[in-house]
C-alpha cells in the first residue's frame, strides 16, 4: 500500500439488540457488522460483496454514521469520523457521500430537481442563487441529463434517470469518496450498464474513490479494483478483484463465485450449490460462521473463528485452511 488510504475502517462493529417477548423478554443480539477492517485508497473502487443480510449495507451506513456503530474506528485522511461533532462532522459529510439502491425513495417527491441539487450547496455554503443553479445545470450535464430537468419533479423521471439525479446530488458537495449501496440492483440490465458507465466515468474524471456495495459479482469484477467478501457480519476474504474472483482462497468466496452464473451454455450443468441456508445473524454458528455449509470444514472450524492471515501479498483471508504459520498475520 504505497498511497495513504482515503478511508480506513478498523474493527467496525454494529450489533442490533432487541428485547422480545412477554412476560420474560429475551435479548437477541444481531451481529450485523462484526469487527470488519478495510482501507480504500484515493481513486480506488473497493467492492463489498456478500449474500443478502450479510451486513454489507449496515457496514456502509455505519461508517457514514447514518447508523451509529458500536465500536471500531473510521478515519478519513487521518480524521476520526466517529468522534466528529457539529461543524467537523458536517465537513466530513461533504467528503463522504452515498448513492442509494432505490431510486424511487431516494428523491423527495415534493422537491424539484433544482431544489434537490441546490440545497446541499447552500447548506455547505458552496454556492447560492444563480451561481448554484449554474452548478446544478453543470452537474446534470455531467450525469447525462438535460438542463430542462431542473424544473421537474422526481415522478417525471424513470428509475435510471432518478439514479443519475441521485448521483448528481451526491456530487453537488464535491465528495472524495462515494459509497454506492447497490446502486444498480434496482435498475433494468440495460440501464445498469449506462449507470455503471457513468460511475466509471466520474471515477476517472473526478478521481473519486468508491465503496461499492453489491451482491452482483459481475458488476463488482468490472467496476472495482479490490474486493472484500462478507459473510454474516465478517469479512472472510479481501484482495485484488481479479485474484479473489478468479481464484478465491476462502471456501465461501469460492462457493459464491461458483454460484454466480456464467454466460456460457457449455458450463450449464456445472453450477454447484451452496448447501443450506444462510444462518441467522442473531444466532451464528460457533467458531467459523461458515463451517456448517463449508465443503472443506476442519475440526478447528467448529472451535474458533480463524484469524486473518495474508497467504499472498495483498490478499487477506480468514480461514483455518490458511494457518498463520505460513506468513505473518496481518492483525
Amino acid at each position, binding site marked *: 500500500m504505497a498511497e495513504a488510504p482515503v478511508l480506513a475502517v478498523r474493527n467496525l462493529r454494529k450489533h442490533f439488540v432487541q428485547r422480545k417477548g412477554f412476560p420474560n423478554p429475551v435479548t437477541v443480539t444481531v451481529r450485523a457488522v462484526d469487527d470488519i477492517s478495510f482501507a480504500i485508497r484515493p481513486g480506488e473502487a473497493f467492492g463489498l460483496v456478500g449474500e443478502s443480510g450479510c451486513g454489507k449495507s449496515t457496514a456502509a451506513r455505519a461508517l457514514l454514521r447514518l447508523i451509529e456503530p458500536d465500536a471500531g474506528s473510521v478515519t478519513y485522511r487521518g480524521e476520526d469520523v466517529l468522534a466528529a461533532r457539529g461543524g467537523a462532522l458536517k465537513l466530513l459529510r461533504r467528503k463522504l457521500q452515498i448513492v442509494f439502491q432505490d431510486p424511487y425513495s*431516494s428523491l423527495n417527491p415534493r422537491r424539484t430537481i433544482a431544489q434537490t441539487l441546490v440545497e446541499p450547496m447552500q447548506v455547505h455554503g458552496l454556492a447560492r442563487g444563480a451561481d448554484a443553479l449554474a452548478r446544478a445545470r453543470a452537474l446534470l450535464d455531467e450525469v447525462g441529463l438535460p438542463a430542462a430537468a431542473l424544473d421537474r419533479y422526481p415522478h417525471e423521471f424513470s428509475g435510471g434517470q432518478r439514479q443519475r439525479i441521485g448521483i448528481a446530488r451526491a456530487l453537488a458537495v464535491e465528495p472524495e469518496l462515494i459509497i454506492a449501496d447497490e446502486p444498480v440492483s434496482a435498475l433494468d440490465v440495460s440501464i445498469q450498464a449506462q449507470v455503471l458507465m457513468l460511475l466509471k466515468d466520474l471515477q476517472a474524471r473526478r478521481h473519486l474513490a468508491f465503496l461499492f456495495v453489491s451482491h452482483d459479482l459481475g458488476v463488482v469484477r468490472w467496476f472495482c479494483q479490490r474486493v472484500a467478501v462478507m459473510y454474516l457480519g465478517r469479512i472472510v476474504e479481501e484482495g485484488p478483484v481479479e485474484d479473489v474472483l478468479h481464484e478465491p482462497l476462502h471456501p465461501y468466496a469460492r462457493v459464491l463465485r461458483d454460484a454466480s452464473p456464467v454466460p456460457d451454455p457449455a458450463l450449464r450443468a456445472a453450477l454447484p450449490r451452496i448447501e443450506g441456508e444462510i444462518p441467522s445473524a442473531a444466532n451464528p454458528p460457533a467458531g467459523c460462521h461458515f463451517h456448517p455449509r463449508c465443503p472443506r470444514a476442519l475440526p478447528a472450524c467448529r472451535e474458533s473463528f480463524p484469524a486473518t492471515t495474508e497467504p499472498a501479498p495483498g490478499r487477506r483471508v480468514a480461514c483455518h485452511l490458511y494457518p498463520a504459520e505460513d506468513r505473518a498475520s496481518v492483525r
Partner: protein
Amino acid sequence: MSAAPAPTGNGAEAAAIAEDSPAPRRGGLARLVGLFNANWTSWAGLAMLVVIVLMAIFAPLLAPYDPLDQSILNRLKPPSADFLMGTDAFGRDVLSRVLYGARISLIVAIAAIGLAMVAGGTIGLVSGYVGGRFDVAMMQAMDVLMSFPSLILGLVIVALLGPELRNLIVAISLTAVPPFARIARAPTLAVKERAFVEAGRALGFSHARIIFVHILPNVMSEVVVMGTLWLATAVRVEASLSFIGLGVKPPTPTWGGMMRDAFENILDAPWIAIYPGLAILALVFALNLLGDGLRDATDPKLRGE
C-alpha cells in the same frame, strides 16, 4: 447480470436516455382537483363556505341595522319586510346579528384550528421523527388530552381562564391538538424511513431542516384535510360554549349566544332561535362537505396509487 456490462459509447447512451423518458404524468395538484371535481358536493360545500365568509367580511355593508341597536318599539317582531328575520327581545335586528355573528364563529374556528394545526403538527412531526421513548411519552400525553370530550375540556379551560375571545380560541385549539399530532405523526413514521431522509442526513442537513423542509410537505395534505373537518367541530364547540354562556360576552352577537337569548321567548318568537341555528347548520354542513371532498381527493386508496 453475470458478465461485465458491455461498454457502450456515449452516443448510444444518450439515445437510450431519450427512450428511457416516461410520458409526463399529470402533476399532483391537477389530479387532486380532478378528484375534487368528481364530487359535486365538495364544490357545494366550498360555495357555501365562500358565501358565509363574504357575508362575515361585508357584514357592515350587508346588515340593514346596527346589530347592537336596541329598540323598545320593535321588540319580538316576526319576520317582515322591515326585519327579514324579525327582531329579538331587545328589538335588535336578527338578520344583522346573524351576519355579524358569522365573524365570531369564523374567527374563533380559524384561529383555533390554525393554532392547533401548527402546535399539533409540530408535536406529531417531531415525535414521529425522534421516535423511541420521547414518542411514546408524547403520544400518551396526547391520548390523555384526547380522552376528554372537546366540549368538556373547552368548558373547563374557559371556566378557569374567563370567557374572553382569546381564551375561547386557546381552549378550542387545545382540544384539537391531539388529533393533529396523530395525523401528522403517522405519515412521518413512514416518510422518515424513505432514503431521501437518509440522503439528507448524509448531506449534513440539520434535523430541523429534514423535519420541516423535507418531511413536512409530505404530510401536509393529511393535516390540511383534517383541519377542514375540525373547523366544523370548532364552530360547533364555539356555539355550544356561547350557548351555555362561556363564549364571547354579550352584547357581541354570536350564534350560540343568540340561541340562548332566544330561549325565554322560544314559543312566542321562535325566529330568534331558528335563524342563528340555521346559520350554524349551514356553516358546519359546508365545512363537512368540503372536508369530505378533500379527504376523498387525497386518500391514496381512492386515488388508486
